[in-house]
């Protein structure tokens, strides 16, 4: 029989589920813990999906606010981050396609990085070109590319997260490869 000595304390790090339940119990200030914990987890995903770090920050902020509003509907509090990802994903998909006017801003950012000698100019330019090409894909194609080649997930992991099959993901990805090639050739 388990030993029930004493009331359980905070311990090392409270699980997501523990924090979510505490928030739903009324300790709403604790939502800050979840935000801090996952603030940057999908930042890169959002940035590559939207083509801009600023747009990504807005999207992640919106997603956190929405997740707070809907927290009672989180079915698996121990997997808050998985649920949060889906909220962010919806937000990224709903984002209106950025106009071509943002291209100069991104180019400026890329050039600035090169000037700081962080990235060779040629590489910065190639990155910018690929990011633009990515934005020409459908959100679904862009997403599978980002999850595999930016976030480094396997097809199996992506399939589980998006609740779809590996073959359909591969089909999507292979179309993405072809369209990217086409886009990059046009720009070259």
């Amino acid at each position, binding site marked *: 029989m388990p030993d029930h000595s004493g009331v359980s304390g905070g311990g090392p790090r409270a699980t997501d589920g523990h924090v979510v339940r505490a928030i739903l119990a009324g300790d709403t200030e604790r939502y800050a813990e979840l935000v801090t914990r996952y603030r940057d987890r999908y930042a890169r995903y959002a940035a590559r999906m939207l083509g801009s770090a600023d747009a990504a920050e807005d999207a992640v902020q919106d997603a956190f606010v929405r997740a707070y509003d809907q927290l009672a509907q989180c079915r698996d509090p121990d997997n808050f981050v998985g649920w949060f990802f889906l909220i962010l994903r919806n937000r990224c998909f709903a984002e209106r396609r950025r106009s071509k006017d943002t291209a100069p801003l991104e180019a400026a950012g890329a050039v600035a990085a090169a000037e700081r000698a962080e990235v060779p100019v040629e590489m910065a330019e190639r990155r910018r070109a690929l990011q633009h090409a990515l934005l020409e894909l459908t959100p679904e194609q862009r997403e599978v590319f980002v999850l595999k080649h930016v976030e480094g997930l396997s097809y199996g992991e992506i399939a589980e997260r998006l609740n779809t099959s590996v073959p359909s993901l591969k089909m999507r990805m292979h179309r993405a490869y*072809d369209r990217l090639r086409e886009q990059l050739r046009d720009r070259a």
Partner: protein
Amino acid sequence: MTDFHPQVKQLLDGEVTLADLPPELRAEGEEALRLLAAVDREPVTFPALDTRVIEELRRRRSKAPSLWRRLVAPREVRLRVRPWTLVPALAMAAALVVLLSRPESTPAAATVTVRFVLFAPEAQEVALAGTFNQWDQAATPLVRTGAPGVWSATLTLPVGQHQYAFVVDGARWVADPGAPAVDDGFGRRNSVLSL
């Protein structure tokens, strides 16, 4: 002509290497790898974002005070209320054990947060004692909530079965009228909480 050869797509997927490609596909393979090399994998951080989120939520909460109550969706709360009187002088009624969540799966380390509530308007102090705190009434005092006569305490308990009772003014042991009860072996009743 613009489509990558299927084998080059396998290369892109990481299922084969450049060396695996036949000579006539090498050039296309190298083009494909240059494409992947252009992928921006730089980490992205938003150092100011948590502050912004919390400020946004506080701003909205001050505008609409009921927002946080909406957060606690009614269907998450199970109330068991049965009016009950101990003695006329104390007139305690409607102890509520509010179960705030049920774990969907039951791994070994699962816990559940539970709020215990007792309506005891005449009491000077109320404590919670049970198997989870060695029946030590000093361990878990209830606190007065905003509502008059209502005392509560919130605990995180391991999944499993627990027995408990409220202790009013350090002397009177009262089972939770809203909860299942069992004989405690001493002529009184303990309440049972199954998580």
